[in-house]
Structure formats: structure tokens, C-alpha cells
């Protein structure tokens, strides 16, 4: 049996297809980067190229190695979360070779007002000033220590810092009590609140000084039997001392 004759034009088309196909396969082999498609539809070496970019910020942990005194001072104060390079600028070069370059030491007010100028959208309680009215012409560092900032004038009222507690106490039956009635506050707490902490009452008997049956206090104060009331629980497990009417 004789095979049917393949027409000439089909053979030419087939040869053309073969040429194009081999051309494509060669082009794909030579033009695709070798690492392409190793982990997915991308050039795997690009990851290493991005990884190899230089760092400009050294990070606070590099600063501690030499400037541990300033770091320790800062760690106790309100600026403990403020990284060194926020104010002093990127210090990657300085960390590599301290003698070559040194980071800037800002004295300008604008460095502080970036965070501390009044802005409505800032969270409540974040210390803010209106820079135009707050001692204009003076440098911030004349009154405040940048690494351990405190208020230059010590506040007279506890509520200046403990605002939430003060506002609760204000509307409670304990409104007439001074904070120092229950809390023993060392004088240093005003200037260095984290190192000198305020003492809290530890026992039931402390509340009992006013609220026990035999207590020497005005008659209108509610009384309980210290021996049986509340069992093994302490008073503040159930009653919030700053607002005792609101049971927790």
C-alpha cells in the first residue's frame, strides 16, 4: 500500500514550525536568567540582591554598646521607647566607624515639636504644647532633659498625671479623702515617679480603720464585720477604692 503524498505546502509549514519552535526554545534558554522559576515565577537571585542593600539606620542596640550610660538613663524615663536615631538621625556610618562621622546633636525646637506640638488628632494624654505660646525663643533643653524628660515644675496635684483616677474619685463617696490618706507618697515620686513608687494599702484592716464595726469614724460611714465580710478576699477584689459605689 502506498502512503498518500503529503502536499508540498504542508511540508514547508511543518519546517517553518520546527524552525520557529527551535528558535523559541533556544531564545528561552539563553534569555531567561538561570535562577528564574527556581522558587516561583520570578528571578530567585533578585531576593539576594534586595537582601544585599546597605543599611543606614544602625538600631538602638548598636548605640548601647558604647553609650550605655545614656541608654540606661533613657530606659528609666518617659522617652524609653524613643529610639536614639529619631532625634540624632541615621547613625549606620557612625556605628561602623565612630571616628569618621558623628550624628547631629539637635538643639533646635523643631525636633521636639514634631511630636509635642499640639494637634487635635493626637491621642489624649500625650504631652503637647502650643509652641508659639510655650516660652517662645527658649530652647527646649534649657528646661527639659531630652534623655530623661520631666516637668520642670513638679505638679502639686496627683491628678496632673493620674487624671483618670482623680476624675473617678471626684464623683465617688471618697471625694473628700486626700490621696495621701491611703497612699504613702515619697517626695521624690514627684520628680522621679518610676524609681520612687507610691505605696498602696496591703491589708483589710487598713480599710477597717474607717469601715469596721468598732472603728473610730463618723457614724454615716458604712460598716462591715471585718471577720466575716468577704471571707478570704481583700476589699479591693470587689470594691474599687477610688470609686467604691461602682462594684467591679
Amino acid at each position: 500500500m502506498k502512503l498518500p503524498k503529503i502536499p508540498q505546502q504542508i511540508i514547508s509549514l511543518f519546517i517553518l514550525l520546527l524552525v520557529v519552535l527551535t528558535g523559541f526554545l533556544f531564545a528561552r534558554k539563553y534569555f531567561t536568567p538561570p535562577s528564574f522559576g527556581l522558587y516561583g515565577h520570578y528571578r530567585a537571585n533578585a531576593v539576594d540582591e534586595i537582601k544585599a542593600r546597605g543599611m543606614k539606620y544602625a538600631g538602638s542596640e548598636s548605640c548601647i554598646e558604647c553609650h550605655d550610660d545614656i541608654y540606661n538613663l533613657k530606659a528609666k524615663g518617659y522617652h524609653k521607647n524613643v529610639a536614639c536615631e529619631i532625634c540624632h538621625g541615621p547613625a549606620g556610618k557612625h556605628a561602623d566607624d565612630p571616628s569618621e562621622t558623628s550624628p547631629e546633636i539637635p538643639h533646635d525646637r523643631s525636633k521636639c515639636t514634631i511630636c509635642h506640638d499640639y494637634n487635635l488628632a493626637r491621642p489624649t494624654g500625650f504631652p503637647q504644647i502650643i509652641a508659639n505660646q510655650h516660652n517662645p525663643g527658649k530652647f527646649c533643653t534649657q528646661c527639659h532633659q531630652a534623655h530623661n524628660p520631666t516637668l520642670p515644675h513638679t505638679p502639686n496635684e496627683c491628678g496632673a498625671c493620674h487624671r483618670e483616677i482623680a476624675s473617678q474619685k471626684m464623683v465617688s463617696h471618697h471625694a473628700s479623702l486626700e490621696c495621701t490618706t491611703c497612699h504613702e507618697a515619697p517626695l521624690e515620686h514627684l520628680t522621679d515617679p518610676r524609681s520612687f513608687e507610691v505605696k498602696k494599702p496591703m491589708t483589710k484592716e487598713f480599710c477597717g480603720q474607717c469601715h469596721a464595726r468598732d472603728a473610730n469614724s463618723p457614724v454615716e460611714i458604712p460598716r462591715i464585720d471585718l471577720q466575716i465580710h468577704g471571707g478570704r478576699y481583700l476589699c479591693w477584689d470587689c470594691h474599687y477604692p477610688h470609686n467604691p459605689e461602682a462594684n467591679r
Partner: protein
Amino acid sequence: MIKESTSMTRREFLEICLKSFPLFVFFPTFWIDELLAFDAETYDPTKHNYAMGIDIDKCIGCGRCVAACKIENDVPKEQEYFRTWVERYVVSTDGETQVDSPNGGIDGFPVLNSDETILKSFFVPKLCNHCSNPPCVQVCPVGATFKSRDGVVLIDEKYCVGCRYCIQACPYGARYMHPEKHVADKCTMCYHRITKGKLPACVEVCPTKARIFGELGQQSSPILRFLRFNDTRTLKSELNTKPKIFYAGADGEVR
């Protein structure tokens, strides 16, 4: 013949064993070393899954993250180019929300005057969401943008042809066209820093710890603690992009 092949004495056998000992010891180690040399020394990308948390209640809008990002990543100084930026949302009493971000928040925000009509106002830092299901990667015609094995969406600068499809595809507007390199550019989560165990530049400089960085796969990671203690949401989750930037304290207005 058979006798000859089994004529090895015990002494000969032990000698051969001893001589071939170095072969067994050194050969496989060379081989493994060669395999490891392809990847960077000890970093194994399959063991990491990076994510970032943003606590809106803590952000003070100082814009230090934006400034640090521009320095660290050589982002052009002009006002149109940002890898991360801070937006201020102002919700008025009649329910309208206005968003502004002058120069990305680097120079601070203008003072708001009419306090009576403002219901609330807050700052929202924005950046590439490093989606687990990234639309930008799907549209790239040349495979220049991709999700690396540690979950970070990256751009191959040498391979990008600058067609801008990805810039249009990104629902978060996190990409821009680099004016000098003429390639798409965006946040890499500071890939060159995190692979060396450092924090991204924006997280490093955040003074109120409003940005939290960590790994989703590690129990001790700060990001898991952040996710446990906060009610978080992701942006435009209805698009099924599965972002890896988690926002705490974000209201419905934040998009």
C-alpha cells in the same frame, strides 16, 4: 576463580575500610556545603512569615517613620513618592470623613481650627500590605514582582519593564513609579534589615511603639502578642487580598 575472589583476609578488609573512611566522611559534607552556598549563609526564608501591626490609638502622627523610610530606602524626596505615609482622618459631627496627608506627614499636619464640628480625629500610617494573595503579583506580565518565600512582596528592579500594571492593580495605592530608575517601587518591609535580624526602619524609629513587627509563626513574637491583646482588622479585607498589616483601633472609616 571463586576461591580467588573470596580470598580477602580480615586484615585486608579492615585496611580497605580504614582507607575509605575519609571518603565517607568528607564527600557528603562537600556536597551539602555546595547546596547551602546557594542560599545566604544561615537565613532560611521558609522558616519566616513576617507581619506588622499598627496601633492607631498610639500613633501621634509625627511622621518619623515616613522620614526614616525615605532615608533608609533612598526614596525620592519629592511629595509624590512614598513607601509609607501617615494619613490624618477627621470625622465631623455630620458624619463626613476627610483624609489628608500633606507630604506624607513628614512635616507634621496643619492645625485644625473649627473644633466644634469635629467628632474625632486620628492618624493612620499606611504602607504596602504584603498581601498573602497579592493582586499586583497576578498582573505583572514579566514576573518582576513576586511574593518571596518568607511572605514579603518584592520587586525585581532589573526585571521590571515599567508597565505600571501593578500600580493600578494595588487597591491600597502602595506603589509608585520611581522617577529615576523607571521601575515600580514600594515597601519591602526593609527586607535587607529584617533578614539580618533588625527591625524595619519605620518600626525602629516609632517613638510610641505604634508599629509592631514580628513573625506570625513564632510564639514569642511581639506581633502575636499584639494580635492576642487587640481587636485587629485588615484593610479592604472584602477584596480577599489577605493583608499582613494588622490595624488595631481602626474604625470603619479607615480604608
